[in-house]
């Protein structure tokens, strides 16, 4: 085991390989407050990548309803139970990561979902599990809560799948940090399936190899965002590249939201993988839940988001506004712009969309029209 630095947990930790960061690291931000679980992202991914024989059950992208939804079943709670209660002290995680808690003979703490665990995505998870007091539906504040969690591979800085592969069949692309399984080399031992805490590596029973999200790297190479990003009708996602905190560039949309404003948080940072998909936490969920899921700083992130100034609101308005990767951004008054790496403008978006109100009845065509707010 080597010692590496994981800024998300505020300390050095043990990892199977020495620290070796890519030239630039693919990263993404998902705004959970905008997701409506329409599953358009899921289908965009499914039709693009996993329509083959043996891939039927695979959802490289999925959206599940928290706290009762899982794909595969219990993916997070099972590992948290195995890991046991752990502690943060401020921004420093003092508990054990999955690498530090590995059982003898293993490289990471993990478990293997069985086939049945993948069998019923989304079924029943929107049912309210709590009891609702009579009349609660009619008061302003909901007595029960849920939110939608969209998930892809986190293309972690310290991937457990990569660490666990005894053959070195999994690697991080040095040019963008995307984690891929070499399909020519994989022998289907499923060590990666067991080790990935997010359960985003899938065994293909027809080829006998394991497969996973590739962040649509052919699109990334063309400076375009992945399929699940550009098809998102809720415009909850933005793809780009992230710097280490000490190198944060406020002009970079990802750096700005993660490092400068600190409103986007990693998923289960305590597991130690330094995942590179960041979530703007749901504002209406009890923070004792979101703190466990997204780490410290949740309250401040929510306060920032609720009181978004023009810069923050402007950058959030850029989400879903272009298929191109926006390496930089700039706000001028009430307009925000997404820019290429060299500063060339890709798109400009008003902070506030203009409202066009149509008359309810078009006399010329003799038709009624509906206005959507």
């Amino acid at each position, binding site marked *: 085991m080597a010692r590496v630095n994981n800024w998300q947990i505020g300390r050095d930790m043990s990892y199977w390989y020495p620290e070796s960061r890519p030239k630039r690291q693919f990263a993404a931000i998902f705004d959970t407050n905008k997701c409506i679980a329409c599953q358009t992202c899921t289908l965009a991914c499914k039709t693009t990548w996993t329509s*083959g024989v043996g891939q039927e059950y695979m959802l490289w992208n999925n959206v599940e309803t928290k706290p009762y939804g899982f794909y595969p079943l219990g993916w997070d709670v099972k590992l948290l139970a195995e890991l046991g209660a752990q502690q943060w002290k401020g921004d420093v995680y003092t508990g054990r990561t999955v690498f530090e808690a590995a059982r003898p003979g293993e490289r990471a703490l993990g478990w293997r979902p069985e086939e049945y665990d993948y069998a019923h995505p989304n079924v029943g998870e929107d049912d309210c599990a709590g009891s609702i007091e009579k009349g609660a539906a009619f008061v302003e504040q909901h007595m029960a809560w849920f939110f939608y969690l969209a998930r892809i591979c986190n293309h972690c800085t310290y991937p457990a799948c990569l660490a666990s592969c005894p053959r070195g069949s999994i690697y991080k692309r040095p040019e963008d940090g995307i984690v891929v399984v070499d399909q020519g080399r994989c022998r289907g031992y499923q060590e990666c*399936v067991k080790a990935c805490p997010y359960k985003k590596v899938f065994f293909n*029973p027809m080829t006998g190899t394991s497969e996973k999200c590739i962040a649509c790297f052919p699109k990334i190479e063309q400076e375009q965002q992945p399929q699940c990003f550009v098809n998102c009708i809720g415009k909850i996602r933005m793809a780009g590249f992230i710097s280490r905190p000490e190198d944060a560039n406020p002009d970079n949309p990802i750096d700005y939201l993660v490092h400068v404003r600190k409103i986007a948080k990693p998923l289960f940072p305590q597991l130690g993988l330094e995942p590179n998909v960041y979530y703007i936490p749901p504002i209406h969920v009890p923070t004792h839940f979101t703190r466990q899921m997204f780490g410290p700083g949740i309250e401040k992130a929510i306060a920032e988001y609720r009181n978004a100034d023009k810069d923050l609101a402007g950058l959030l308005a850029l989400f879903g506004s272009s298929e191109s990767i926006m390496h930089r951004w700039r706000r001028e008054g009430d307009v925000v712009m997404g820019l290429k790496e060299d500063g060339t403008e890709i798109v400009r978006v008003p902070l506030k969309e203009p409202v066009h109100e149509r008359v309810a009845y078009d006399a010329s065509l003799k038709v009624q029209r509906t206005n959507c707010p």
Partner: protein
Amino acid sequence: MQLDSRHFSVFLALLLAACSQGGTVAAPPTEIAIQPCAGTLPADPLDPRWQAVAPFPAPLILQDMVEPRLLETSTREVRVRTLSDGARVAFHLEWDDATKEDLPMPASFVDACAVQLPAKTAPDVPAPQMGEPGRAVEIVLWRASWQAVVDGRPDTLQAIHPNATTDHYPFDAASLPEGSDARRAMQLRYSPARALGNDLAGPRETPVQDLLAEGPGTLAPASAHTSTGKGVRTANGWSVVLVRAMPPGLAPGARTQVAFAVWQGAHEETGARKMRTGWMPLFLEVKP
């Protein structure tokens, strides 16, 4: 407990009898003898000619040297018989395994076995754990899942899940005629392991694979696949024949080393998680 004189006499008589027989009981073999075989090598594990060969009981030990390790013993012994026709050598492996596992699925693994020899026949053999850099070992691997396909299990999802239904695959499009190159190309597009020529990913025509390794984690397909094999399920486990080329330089009367490995799918054994032997002397008998 104290022995009275009558019991002591009986005990002494038994002890003397046991000692007197000691000279006649054959000592357990210390090396595996490749016996000559007249005619074609028996490729079927149930061929009666195998029963004429005394089995060598090779004790299996845990692979607990490199991660991921196996830390709980499963198969304790593999019984080995060998025959050669001078050009090829056949290994007959038999072991106990209560559960037949031949379907690779998520969190489900298949039964398998392997024979390993040094790539070069020399007194100084490479490390028994998959060889070492610059000093390769040759491995012949048999998997129960491949045997099932060779024995007729179709390469379809329904062979794994008989009740599975699927609405549409991209290669089912009407514009792609059945059997056409265009349809095959579309199938490969959604099967990257097959598209890349990963030879364990495609439909199998043989239940064995020839492999080379130069240390743990370096297993790679051999440049040519010349070995053959067949496995059958027995009442207690598996009986498998693996036939490979005679190790170059192994002349009658000469010795090399051989190692074996067995995987029990029900015990989640795969890859490095296996029961294995160290090197064992392999001796090519001189034809009488």
